[in-house]
């Protein structure tokens, strides 16, 4: 019996549990069995990006082991997906055994919108002919640049009945960058304000992202920009009930 293993990410687990719940509901509604491997903690990306390589390797190995029994892994996070798919094989490159295990995880891991598009939306109801919206979509950096996932999130939004109207620079970084937002808070905040300014300028009241990190960052400035910021999973779950 194939069961999807959910990797909600540590940020969703501890800070944004509603996104994890929405992802589970959505995937079950699409017809898939979902499991949450309880041994998971963090993919290691914050450590990798901050220069704590040994710690990142340790968490990478832990994540590989936890998800090894499953056939398919789905994440509601483009950047954690990129960490697993692109950086694990690099990090473990010099150890043939671990590298092979990392590559095996890479090959069965999907970002949420990528999974939904790849398996044709599952059993989810298609939206009515009259699209609601519009929404604007923020491309998170690693999802679009390292995984090349630009079209998929837009497609699922449209399937859910949301017209997507584009910002000037949909793939301009929101300034989160993990520890970057702690080390360079002023630059990080200015970057987020620019992102929200562009989002507000589209006239769409809803800004959607597929990354919990970007969500946390952009929400801090959402009120002053008059824009609502939501995660892709929450938006899709709400519109496919």
């Amino acid at each position: 019996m194939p069961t999807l293993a959910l990797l909600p990410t540590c940020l969703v687990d501890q800070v944004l549990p509603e996104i994890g719940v929405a992802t589970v509901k959505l995937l079950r509604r699409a017809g898939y069995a979902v499991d949450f491997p309880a041994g998971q903690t963090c993919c290691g990306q914050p450590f990798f990006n901050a220069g704590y390589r040994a710690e990142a390797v340790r968490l990478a190995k832990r994540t590989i082991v936890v998800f090894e029994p499953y056939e398919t892994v789905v994440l509601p996070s483009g950047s954690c997906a990129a960490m697993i798919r692109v950086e694990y094989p690099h990090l473990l490159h010099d150890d043939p055994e671990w590298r092979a295990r990392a590559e095996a995880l890479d090959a069965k891991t999907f970002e949420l919108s990528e999974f939904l598009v790849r398996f044709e939306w599952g059993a989810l109801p298609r939206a009515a002919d009259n699209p609601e919206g519009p929404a604007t979509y923020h491309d998170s950096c690693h999802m679009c640049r390292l995984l090349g996932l630009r079209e998929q999130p837009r497609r699922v939004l449209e399937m859910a009945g949301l017209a997507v109207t584009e910002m000037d620079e949909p793939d301009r970084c929101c300034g989160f960058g993990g520890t970057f937002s702690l080390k360079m808070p002023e630059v990080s905040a200015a970057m987020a304000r620019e992102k929200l300014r562009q989002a507000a300028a589209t006239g769409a009241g809803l800004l959607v992202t597929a990354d919990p990190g970007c969500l946390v960052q952009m929400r801090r400035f959402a009120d002053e920009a008059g824009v609502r910021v939501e995660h892709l999973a929450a938006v899709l779950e709400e519109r496919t009930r």
Partner: protein
Amino acid sequence: MSGGIESGQKSDQESGPKSGLKGDHKGGFRAAARIAIEDVKLGRSVEAATGRFRDAREAALAELPDADTLRDHFKRIRAATLADLPAYLETFKANATTAGAQVHFARDAADARELILEIAGSHGAALAAKSKSMTTEEIRLNEALEAAGVRPVETDLGEWIVQLAGEAPAHIIAPAIHKTKEQVAGLFVAESGEDVPAEIPALTALARRRLRETFLRAGIGISGGNLAVAETGSVVLVTNEGNGRMVTSLPPVHVAVLGIEKIAPTWAEAAAWLSLLARSATGQPLSIYTSVITGPKQPGDVDGPEAVHIVLLDNGRSRLLGTKYEEVLQCIRCGACLNVCPVYRTAGGHAYRGETGPPSPYSGPIGAVVTPLLFGLEEHKQLPQASSLCGACRDVCPARIDLPRMLVELRNDTVAAGLDGTAASTLARLAAGALGSGRNFEFAARLARFGRRFAGGDLPRPAAKSFRETWREAETNLPNPPVADPGPVSNPLPEPPPAAPAGLPEPWRSRRQFAEPARRFREALEKAHGEVILTESAAEALAEARRVLREIGVMTVVADEGEPLDGFAPAPDDGWRIARPGDHAGDPEGWRAVCARADAGLTSAEALLAETGSLVVSSGPGRSRLVSLLPPIHIAVVPLDRLATDLFTWLEGRTGPWPANTVLVSGPSKTADIEQTLSVGVHGPARLVVVLFP
């Protein structure tokens, strides 16, 4: 060595006369960025300027039939060149020496300064005309020259502006990106004592007038170099204003300063380099002037410097060869990564600096990598952190340098060297310990939730109930549906390209084909604000040239010798006179004065490049560098059988040794250094008229 610069390389980043955000400033990147962010006007000009560069680059690369393949090819060229760098440097030295240049290797900044001061001293130079060079910024040359009694004058408009302001360049290719025209007018009034309005044409005209005196009086010309070609010992310098041509043609001695990594083994590699450089930098197919300098004035040449010195600067570069950072030496300093970097666009160029010293000449993503590598990680420990690792830089780099990877490596080095701070590293290790074991994680998470009421305002607060707690409680209530089977799943990422074979790739074969090359030439040149007149015969072409001269109302015309211009003369009622280099044989000063006063210059060209709308003009007997440079109008009369498709095809067909000076002219002199607004004729001719005949 003269006084004031006794200290070694370390002092380079430690002291300087500059003050405020522009000069020395404590607190490093974060503190300087904070000041920049508060300056709303600065932010807007940087944002607008970089946005224009970014869009222009994208359009220029999209116009190429195979830009991505060319970039892959160029990456291989750069990697293969660095793999064999010492050999190429030796080849370069041998060939440049044969051409009459003197090549010097400078171990570090102090060494380079000493060499250049010696050269200036031996020629008795009191005034140095400089064209924009980040490498001379790197070695703090201007301060050393001043201390030695040689007055350096920057002649690139943007660089002159920041020199007058006592600041450092804020962008690799647009030094005054942060200045408004009002600020520039204030600086110019103070410099010249003249009353000049805050209007860009008036400001440009003032710069032309003031700096023209510098070019004519300077005892030494100092330039950088965009690349050096080993097989012919040539230095290539690209500029838009024409100041690079002035600096390398007018003073009696020319010194070019380049990093040792700027080597192209042969012209095949140089052509790929030049095809990407200007497109990536400003979105131009080629810069207005691409000067190829192969040794000093040759016997029989009309003009040019008597001596050419080439200083190849190491200053920490060779230390990177063979390390995980070697790739950073593939950089050609186009600045494309700055223009797409959201951190640079927010913080500005002056934020890229050490904990105590002045700004690094290298800013943006490339600066964040190269500055700590060349000038020390401890002093510049904030720079590797000055990135959200978004990866936009990697996407636009002509050499596809993986800057985010190197930023992460530098962060690894920061942690390993104990420079990340005790609090940060303790926290990181504790957190990794907690996350490394499921039980510790649950405990730590519960602790964090307990402490959430104390959390700082901006940190994300833990939820009252974590997802895993919700899952445990509700999992049985949320039944899995009848299972849909995703089937056999495989989601591999695209395979990376196989490792390239060692050695230089086969020369790039141009895939350009123009149904009507003459028309393409015309369109390309007109896009750069040049003028093209197509005629039916040589006689008609010369008649057209005469008509243009009459229309302008010129008094004096200077013209090269040789076909098709031999015998070209005014009709009795034309009202102008013509001078040729032969009329002033043995009197270079007299010839220079004539050219400086002339109203128009008339040349032919040895080749035309259709793709880029370029003329190839070389020095030689009867052909003066100044004819196409000093007068306000340049008219070229050229037969169409010299039309080549592009740089690659022209170079493939080119034979014979290189003259001392060859310049590819791709439009009238221009600048956009003040508020990114186009202004023509800043140093070179404001008008370029090309008359073609079959």
